[in-house]
């Protein structure tokens, strides 16, 4: 057996597969949902691209309006949550239901499902919190879904430098920015709520085992997709 084939055999979960698809129905259902979500986010991101590169008037430089270092920190948080999610999956696939367990001869403790899923939930909640703080600050500076608020700091800047602050396209920028990042934040919030529910009803009572961890694999797929979408959004909205 080749290394790739051996790895593939290990990664395949020990649950009955649906005929045809070759995977259990919960997982197939999540993949189909994610495929539909690809089209949903394409509509949002595509609209932004078409509006931004289709208008003839100047568009605001992201760094002039948005807090890019804060969002870079948020990106780091989401990447950390993705790796902790996959560590939670690996832990339960190995039957590690515990929180932390001492390893003989080592100072670091071995994390189980309870530990890694809690880390994921904390990182996810921190991401949403930072996003809320970002929104409050942006609106405070005058950047709203309708553009720059009259009399605000950003409106004054835009009056002084219409090109850098994209004065003529601020309405388009505000509506597309808040729609895209808002829907993504909504996805993250739904993920955190779902994980909290699973944590309280299935993880803490130790209902998952090495023989059945479908819930963790399915919520993991959703969570990684949310991370994947943010990777694209961060580049397109904050860096370009």
């Amino acid at each position, binding site marked *: 057996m080749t290394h790739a084939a051996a790895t593939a055999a*290990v990664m395949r979960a020990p649950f009955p597969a649906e005929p045809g698809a*070759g995977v259990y129905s919960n997982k197939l259902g999540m993949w*189909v949902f994610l*495929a539909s979500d690809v089209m949903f986010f394409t509509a949002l991101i*595509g609209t932004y691209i078409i509006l931004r590169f289709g208008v003839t008037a100047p568009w605001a430089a992201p760094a002039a309006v948005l807090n890019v270092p804060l969002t870079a920190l948020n990106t780091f948080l989401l990447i*950390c949550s993705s790796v902790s999610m996959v560590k939670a999956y*690996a832990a339960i696939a190995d039957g590690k239901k515990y929180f932390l367990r001492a390893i003989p001869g080592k100072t670091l403790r071995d994390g189980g499902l309870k530990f890694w899923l809690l880390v994921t939930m904390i990182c996810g909640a921190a991401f949403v919190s930072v996003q809320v703080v970002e929104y409050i600050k942006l609106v405070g500076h005058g950047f709203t879904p309708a553009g720059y608020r009259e009399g605000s700091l950003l409106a004054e800047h835009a009056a002084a430098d219409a090109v850098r602050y994209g004065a003529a396209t601020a309405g388009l920028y505000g509506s597309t920015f808040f729609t895209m990042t808002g829907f993504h934040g909504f996805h993250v919030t739904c993920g955190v709520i779902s994980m909290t529910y699973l944590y309280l009803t299935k993880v803490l009572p130790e209902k998952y085992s090495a023989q059945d961890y479908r819930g963790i694999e399915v919520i993991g797929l959703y969570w990684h997709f949310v991370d994947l979408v943010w990777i694209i959004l961060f580049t397109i909205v904050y860096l370009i």
Partner: protein
Amino acid sequence: METVAHKRPNYIAIWGYLFVLTVIEVTAAFLSHIPKRWLILILLFLAIWKALLVAMYFMHLKFERWRLRAVFIIPLPLAIILVLAVITEKIW
């Protein structure tokens, strides 16, 4: 169990990879003097690279059967067609 753990991808290494690529992205966007057109291409390339790492190793697409991969891959060209169709309409 030890053999099973050994055969899984090194998730921490993938995390390090993603972190380094993000740092390169932010540095290229704000500290480099690359022309705008090239910068956009470089940033998109890095973003797609990172997204592929997440899909292949964290979502385990690399280890899934082709029929399941198709569920996720088929919407991608459709998504590109959707955007291109609207852009083309604007040009016409």
